[in-house]
């Protein structure tokens, strides 16, 4: 059975893994250069990096690959795996050899899952490549561009570490399940693509923040830690809606919540109207601004920040991957149930 599985799988496997090998090669070549760049440039690291077209392109391509791999695997490996057999009727040939369809599916899924896990290792390669970026972020360097984004941030987190492995394996099983449900290869491919993209979008939004309880820090709002000041409505109106954000003071951390507490310690939506004097405005008289911050502190307004510190990267990675793999296992169970039950 392994021979047949491999015979049917090898060409699609070669295309995907071939593309990945090219990507990994480019990362492997430029990775050490990036470390050199950090050593040579120090604080100017991100400025110098922003002029280095090759490394930027490689990083971008690597990230794009890591995002694309689950979809490609689900659509081109998973969806046709059973659907194409059902469509062409060849399941009637192979299910009538001396092998149960469960063993047949186990073999096909097993080998493809190994391939998917291998393809998902692009995340580990990216993590290795970006070590100088992470190091620079922890040293406090930043250019507020995409390359200085801490690796805990969802857009980076999803393509680094072991999460792509879990996501790719899950995408594969989503594809197989879709094929077993709709029984048409092309329809299954479309359904798979939509589902995988939805999972990729929703996981960072809904799952990643809830994997661990965030650290909480409560601090006074000062002109030093103020990082955001948003005022909506008319500036001269009686009640402008003022929202502020403060810095967590934690390099590489991922802030999930940044809200203002009123003197009673309850979260409030907006600061009182007089706080508009705290606005960072170069024309403002500094004494008035200082007085405003003093008044905020005196009245008892404080800022509460919830965040995941940088040190949690791997803990969060393993949890999210575990969750994705548990989902994949559940769907696998469905596949076996369905192939035994509904194709008879």
């Amino acid at each position, binding site marked *: 059975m392994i021979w047949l599985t491999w*015979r049917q799988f090898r060409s699609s496997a070669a295309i995907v893994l071939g593309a990945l090998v090219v990507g990994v090669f480019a990362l492997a070549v430029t990775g050490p250069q990036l470390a050199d760049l950090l050593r040579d440039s120090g604080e100017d690291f991100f400025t110098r990096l922003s002029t280095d077209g090759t490394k930027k392109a490689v990083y971008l391509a690597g990230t794009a690959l890591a995002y694309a791999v689950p979809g490609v695997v689900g659509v081109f490996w998973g969806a046709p795996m059973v659907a194409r057999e059902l469509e062409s009727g060849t399941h*009637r*040939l192979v299910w*009538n*050899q*001396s092998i*149960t369809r469960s063993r047949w599916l186990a073999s096909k899924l097993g080998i493809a899952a190994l391939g998917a896990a291998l393809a998902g290792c692009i995340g580990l390669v990216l993590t290795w490549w970006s070590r100088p970026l992470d190091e620079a972020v922890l040293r406090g360097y930043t250019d507020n561009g995409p390359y200085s984004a801490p690796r805990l941030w969802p857009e980076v987190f999803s393509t680094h570490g072991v999460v792509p492995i879990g996501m790719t394996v899950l995408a594969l099983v989503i594809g197989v399940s879709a094929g077993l449900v709709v029984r048409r290869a092309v329809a299954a491919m479309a359904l798979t693509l939509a589902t995988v993209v939805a999972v990729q979008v929703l996981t960072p939004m809904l799952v990643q923040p809830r994997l661990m309880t965030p650290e909480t820090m409560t601090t006074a709002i000062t002109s030093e830690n103020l990082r955001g000041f948003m005022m909506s409505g008319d500036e001269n109106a009686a009640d402008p809606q003022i929202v502020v954000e403060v810095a967590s003071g934690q390099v590489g951390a991922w802030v999930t919540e940044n809200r203002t507490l009123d003197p009673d310690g309850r979260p409030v939506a907006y600061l009182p109207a007089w706080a508009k004097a705290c606005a960072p405005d170069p024309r403002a008289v500094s004494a008035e601004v200082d007085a405003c911050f003093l008044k905020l502190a005196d009245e008892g307004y404080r800022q509460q920040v919830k965040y995941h510190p940088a040190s949690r990267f791997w803990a969060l990675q393993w949890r999210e991957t575990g969750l994705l793999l548990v989902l994949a296992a559940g769907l696998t169970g469905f596949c076996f149930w369905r192939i*035994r039950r509904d194709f*008879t």
Partner: protein
Amino acid sequence: MSTALQARGLGKRYGRTWALSDCTLEVPSGRVVGLVGPNGAGKSTFLNLAVGMLRPSAGEIEVLGARPTGPDVQRARVGFVGQDTPTYAGLTVGEHLRLGAHLNPAWDAAMAQDRIERLGLDPKQRAGRLSGGQRAQLALTLGVAKRPELLLLDEPVASLDPLARREFLQDLMEAVADQELTVVLSSHLVSDVERACDYLVVLVDSEVQVAGDIEHLLATHHRLTGPRREPAQLPAEQHVVSVSHTDRQSTYLVQTEAPILDPAWEVSQLDLEDLVLAYMGRSAAQRHANGSRPALEALR
């Protein structure tokens, strides 16, 4: 006579229509059984149920004494070639044989090789490039070289030319002689059955009209032609299969174990086609007559 295949009250429903309903049928082992019936009689459904490709909606079926959706060991004992003789378009003929060798413990590599050579199939040819008949032969080779105890063939020769058809059936008979193989092949062509089979089952509307050893069936069915008379006037041991009257004459097709003694009858022998058509026609006539189906005796 042991039983290779036994169905009791077997039924399969798709949505609200029954493809096969309340089918009770027994197939003896060691025979080449022709399963004959009009289109839509439920032949394919029956064979698919027998091989576990379908699950019964009602009743039960036993194949070689076990349920068809059994473990690997059971799967090795039953071979099946579907109506559309599926093959992997991207795999070569040689790779199909390799597939068979990998997936079947009792695979007969020499026989498979021999068959492919005899058929003139190029092992390096992709199955997608083969003609319909060649594909059928390849699928059949896989089924036979698996060395099953029971081989089920759903319209196996439908896509073969007359010569290939004869050769295939010839092969099949040799295989049956070599290994104690039971074969059930469905067909709506009586000539195929006549050539290869020694046991006949006529299935019309899920119902077995007649089943039995072909020689015995031919020996016990007679066409009687003579002056007109009503069925009630016939001796009790003569079972009427079909009857037609003209003003003066009656033609009866009867089944009886006893000799025909009445000198008024002109007795002639039937060929298999007449017999099959009579049973198929009778079922249709009865449905017209009263809408219900009277129970029929199983004839051996």
